[in-house]
């Protein structure tokens, strides 16, 4: 069952790869394709995502929205910590 997932705004991703190294599940990778800004952008490559938010936290472009199978109705996971 899927624990979590991410939506990545490919338009504003700059392909910095910081999310890739931050993801404990190694679930992210650079796409071979380019976006409007000329960058290769990041994609979720398989369903291992746990919704841990790590990638989103380090994403400079604030391009990642994270979803998780969780009760928390908090706006962000951070606050609950």
């Amino acid at each position, binding site marked *: *069952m*899927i624990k*979590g*997932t991410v939506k990545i705004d490919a338009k*504003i991703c*700059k*392909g*910095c*790869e*910081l999310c*890739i*190294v*931050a993801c404990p599940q190694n679930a992210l990778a650079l796409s071979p394709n380019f976006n409007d*800004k000329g*960058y290769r952008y990041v994609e979720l490559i398989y369903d291992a995502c746990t*919704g*841990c*938010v*790590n*990638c*989103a*936290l*380090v*994403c*400079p*472009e*604030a*391009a*990642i*929205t*994270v*979803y*998780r*199978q*969780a*009760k*928390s*109705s*908090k*706006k*962000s*996971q*951070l*606050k609950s*910590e």
Partner: protein
Amino acid sequence: MNEKLLLDDGTELEQVFCRPDTLTDVPYHYCPGCGHSVVHNVLMEVVDELDIQDKTIGVAPVGCSVFAYHYMNIDMQEAAHGRACAVATGIKRVLPDKLVFTYQGDGDLAAIGTAETIHTVNRGENILIVFINNGIYGMTGGQMAPTTLPGMVTSTSPYGRDIHMSGYPLKITELAAQLPGAYYVTRQSVHNPNAVRKLKKAVTKAFEYQMQNKGTCFIEVVSNCPSGWKMTPVETIKYLEEVMFPYYPLGDVKVPKE
């Protein structure tokens, strides 16, 4: 926010993180992987959470983050190079009930702005100073900063910073912490998710202290500059951990005695 996502298999996922509301839609002009953006995100996240958008006034520096006002959806002023603390003083003194912060690079805060920084902290101005130390002048193309490490190559230290010529990197955060006006002084980073979490806590605290009129809060963020350092963003993380943090150790420098 609080949006749900319904997957094909029927699983319902809850949104647990998204772009802060108090960011505008303008895409960052920063280089890929630049720490400035992350700090912007954290600041606006906190503004969201404390619900202080209408009370917060930011001061942008001259440096790569000069355009911070394009991204942060709050009232902002752009200060002359090095004068953000003076500008913030001007704002805070006439609007003491608002929450005022400066956002400054190492050239801005620790070189040309040294006098303003020291005296603002010494007066204990009730503001938050956010100090992005990337050890270089990003904006102008990678010149040596007061915080550039010994031996580090920049365009004005092409053979590495020579301490006999330029002295040792200036730990202005430690100086600031010595001043009685400084209430809370901490050194943070954004090089990994936990660091980002800690920074967010620090910023939250700082705004809370400001609401309580405690004096100056000073947050240094040891950050990166992939372009100036001539590294990929991922490489900068290693450099931070191996080279920068030993000289600029992370953690609180001065905490309130409560």
